[in-house]
């Protein structure tokens, strides 16, 4: 680091302990391991970035996933341990299953367990956790339900607030789930938070002076009194938005049983997952009946009490994961993560066709569609909410 950083002043926060310590820590870090200077891209990069002839598409240099570069032996040992434990679980589970089956079987292989229709169904406790959780998520996210939600903050003097959350699976037309949060309290007639887009939500928000109901928009009937709930309006909305996107992002393969039908799980899509991205779910009768997430500084407990009779949809809502801002309108820039040998020209053409067919006024929907393009592993954007731009810029990054 040059002298500019070394002589930096803390400005308006002179004397603030955290500012001073952070600045000092940064100086120490760079003194002990001086940073390599960046390469000026205007002078041409020497470390292998490919420049596509089309200036609207840049093929970036390959780079390994950063986490792996610094993965210590500890990480490898942990991974091996997981494999061993998973194998032991499967062997134990498979042994019990095989012993109850007809040893002849169609291929005579005692190592290939089959389900005998006259045998009792395996209980959730004996099935692999990943299978139990995956099935419960599928059943829960493909039907409508109502949940009681309890939201609190760190202040022990403030009772947690409760709300009723309704959920409807992805509309086959819009492909987006429809969620609402209904809150009631002594100083509040009724406030309804609309999450995700759906025509019915817009109708219900017609009275509101907020923008047209997009994710996070509020429809308020009566008055909003943040003090009654012990959290700010923004804080509550952040939590509700986080909750509505957390459940579909549970990674079933991460499920670890903790007893009584409960599982510790990891959340795989992490924006806006703000906190440690683990949660605890409870499964009963093939559904998620409780979801608890240690939200930032508070708690968010959702008890799914009843399940509606909405018709099942063919497409689960698990694809409703939008990288980057939650509410992009026009999509200005998108980075596509692809394999090394991907035909990026073909991928780009597919994306342009999507852009032409769908238009570019609903960035979230366009991103979801781009995510499904063959060859695309991941999609991210730097487009902010409300951005406008003349065209969609496409970039690629090749991951090993």
């Amino acid at each position, binding site marked *: 680091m040059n002298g*500019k950083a070394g002589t930096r002043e803390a400005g308006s926060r002179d004397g603030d302990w955290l500012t001073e310590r952070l600045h000092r820590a940064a100086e120490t870090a760079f003194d002990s391991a001086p*940073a390599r200077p960046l390469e000026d891209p205007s002078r041409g990069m020497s470390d292998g970035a490919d420049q596509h002839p089309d200036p609207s598409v840049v093929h970036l240099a390959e780079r390994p996933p950063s986490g792996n570069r610094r993965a210590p032996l500890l990480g490898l040992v942990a991974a091996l341990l997981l494999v061993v434990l998973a194998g032991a679980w499967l062997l134990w589970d498979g042994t019990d299953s095989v012993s109850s089956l007809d040893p002849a079987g169609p291929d005579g292989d005692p190592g290939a367990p089959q389900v005998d229709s006259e045998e009792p169904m395996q209980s959730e406790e004996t099935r692999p956790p990943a299978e139990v959780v995956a099935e419960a998520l599928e059943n829960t996210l493909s039907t409508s339900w109502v949940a009681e939600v309890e939201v609190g903050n760190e202040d022990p003097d403030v009772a947690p607030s409760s709300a009723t959350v309704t959920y409807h699976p992805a509309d086959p037309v819009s492909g987006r789930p429809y969620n609402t949060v209904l809150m009631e309290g002594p100083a509040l007639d009724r406030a309804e938070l609309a999450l995700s887009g759906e025509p019915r939500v817009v109708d219900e928000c017609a009275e509101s002076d907020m923008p047209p109901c997009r994710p996070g928009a509020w429809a308020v009937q009566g008055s909003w009194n943040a003090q009654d709930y012990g959290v700010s309006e923004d804080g509550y909305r952040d939590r509700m938005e986080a909750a509505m996107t957390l459940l579909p992002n549970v990674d079933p393969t991460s499920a670890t049983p903790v007893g009584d039908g409960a599982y510790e799980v990891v959340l795989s899509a992490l924006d806006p997952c*703000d906190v440690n*991205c683990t949660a605890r779910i409870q499964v009963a009768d093939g559904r998620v009946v409780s979801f608890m997430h240690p939200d930032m500084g508070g708690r968010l407990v959702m008890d799914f009490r009843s399940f509606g009779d909405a018709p099942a949809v063919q497409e689960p809502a698990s694809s409703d994961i939008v990288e980057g801002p939650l509410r992009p309108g026009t999509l200005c820039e998108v980075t596509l993560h692809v394999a090394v040998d991907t035909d990026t020209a073909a991928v780009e053409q597919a994306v342009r066709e999507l852009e032409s067919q769908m238009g570019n006024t609903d960035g979230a929907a366009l991103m979801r569609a781009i995510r499904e393009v063959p060859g695309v592993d991941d999609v991210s954007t*730097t487009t902010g909410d409300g951005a406008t731009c003349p065209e969609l810029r496409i970039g690629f990054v090749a991951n090993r």
Partner: protein
Amino acid sequence: MTDAGPHTGSVESFRRFFGSEQDELVRFCWGLTLDHDDAHEVAQETMSRAWRDWDRVSAEGSNPAAWCRTVALNLVRGMWRRQQTARLGRGAIETQVLVERARHADVETRRDLDLEQALAGLPQRQREAVVLHHLMDLPVRECAAVMDVGVSSVKVHLRRGRDSLARQLGVEPGPAGEDRVTGPTGQNASVQNATDEEVPR
């Protein structure tokens, strides 16, 4: 962006920007990642994107430095997502590295490493807010713009991040506390009425 790329004049302006901002950008990325290699990678990628779109990034009325911070933040978030998907707990990795460095550090350096470790353990949004406000010296409003959240949300993140760091580091904030961020309970009016620079008691 034209097919011919930025014009000569904008090449010069980019090089001036690059020369003056690269260290700050690396510093910012380090604050988010606490890893020199990751910080360098993110900063390099950010500058490459800035160069690619320089005519637009540097248009009149725009703020290229703020644009770079937003891009860098999104790149780091994407990096975190991929790392956590692979279940290589970021906090665990950084703790291991920091423990190794601490073994060979003097007292002052160990204090810095304690701060790094505490910072690494903060939730993502709290860490972002703390780095933007306290390391990059950005006012709360600009932090909110970079993080794409409301101003009140930034204040909540800052309050909780500061309190968490203070607890872990055994720090008692000063009695004046002009920079102390408070929680929302019972003081929502003051939180919402505060200026962008002030983080209220």
